[in-house]
């Protein structure tokens, strides 16, 4: 399957903390791609770090909405260790919340 790529740095800069940008990306790119069952790669090249609230605003709703499809079709590339930790945190608590359903 052909993958779509999103360069996070182009939207959020070298430190991803602007939740408005995260929300914009989620609504304009991530949700439509997952609605069409596409594979999506979030490329964090050049992003040194991110806040938990940025990553939450970016991917929590797609995970809640699309569940396994989001977990299977979203990929993360060129993540710094900090970005990896934050994404893992959001994955952990979002999957906990999916267990409620």
């Amino acid at each position, binding site marked *: 399957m052909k993958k779509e790529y999103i360069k996070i740095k182009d939207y959020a800069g070298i430190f991803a903390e602007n939740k408005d940008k995260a929300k914009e990306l989620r609504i304009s790119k991530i949700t439509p791609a997952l609605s069409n069952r596409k594979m999506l790669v979030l490329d964090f090249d050049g992003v040194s770090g991110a*806040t938990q609230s940025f990553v939450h605003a970016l991917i929590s709703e797609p995970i809640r909405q699309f569940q396994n499809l989001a977990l299977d079709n979203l990929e993360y590339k060129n993540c710094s260790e*900090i970005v990896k930790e934050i994404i893992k945190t959001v994955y952990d608590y979002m999957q906990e919340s999916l267990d409620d359903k």
Partner: protein
Amino acid sequence: MKVKLSTSDYLRNSDRFIDGLDFSDPKRLIIYSHPKWLNVHPAILTLLASMALKAGKENVKFDNLTALSGAYLDRMGLFNFVSEESPYNINKKEESGRFIPLTIIKNSIEQSKFITDMIPLLHLPVGQTDVIKYTVGELIRNVLEHSQSRDGAIVAAQYYKKSNTIRLGICDNGIGIKKSMQKHWQSRTKTDLDAIKWALVPGISGTTSREGGTEDNAGAGLFFIKSIAQIARNYFMIYSGSGVYRLLLHDKRVKNPRLHSNPDDDRHSDRNDAPHFNGTLVAIDLSLETKTEFTSLLSVIRDVYGSAIRERKKRKYKEPKFV
């Protein structure tokens, strides 16, 4: 309103400063100063600026501002918030200090610009910038999202060479934490102190009564900041309404302090009888001495956050009915 500045207004003895505050008569502010020496935490400067904004430039007066070290107030930009002329003659072009003067941030674009610009001002080495960016980013965002302050967030920071610490303050003239939390958590936020503590619990957001938050808020921000402060053995204080919660330093010999999801379980001091401040002040000292990498710190916080959510969920599970 009245403020008394002394020779040692640090976070470890913030109670003395807080006790000297008087928020009555919001149309007038008098700043009393120790005549010989002033030593002011940047968080106190942000509070002064917020009070000056409330009173209006013309209605702020200094009393006894004679200490030479008072030039710091000028250097940090406090005289931009008052109409009185500075008695100090500082050459701003020669400044080489590592500080961020009082800055007002009103939206996310200004926030991003501020976070990009602040690192060169503090002259920090590359490895130490992410924790500062993270802390400032989350705290400013909290103000912009929850405080409803027309004046935005007021921020200031200073690097202290001797202690290798960044001291940081963020203040707003908004509705305060209690009002912000009460829409969804009335029974949990009867007092200002209750509200501060509830806001520190992981998974609790003022924007929803659902534990775990919404698509835009997870309710993790303040818990992360408190945890960062705790692991790195830093002071952290929140003052809102009449409530003050102050994280105290753990014993130096404890290499890996335990993080707690319940702020009552942390080594802290608190009070609910402080002079009533309508907005919110957050102060933090970030030590750059810490040997813990920011990544490992985040990993520890992730574990505690996850187990806190799991434990709270378990408490909600229904027991089987054995008849």
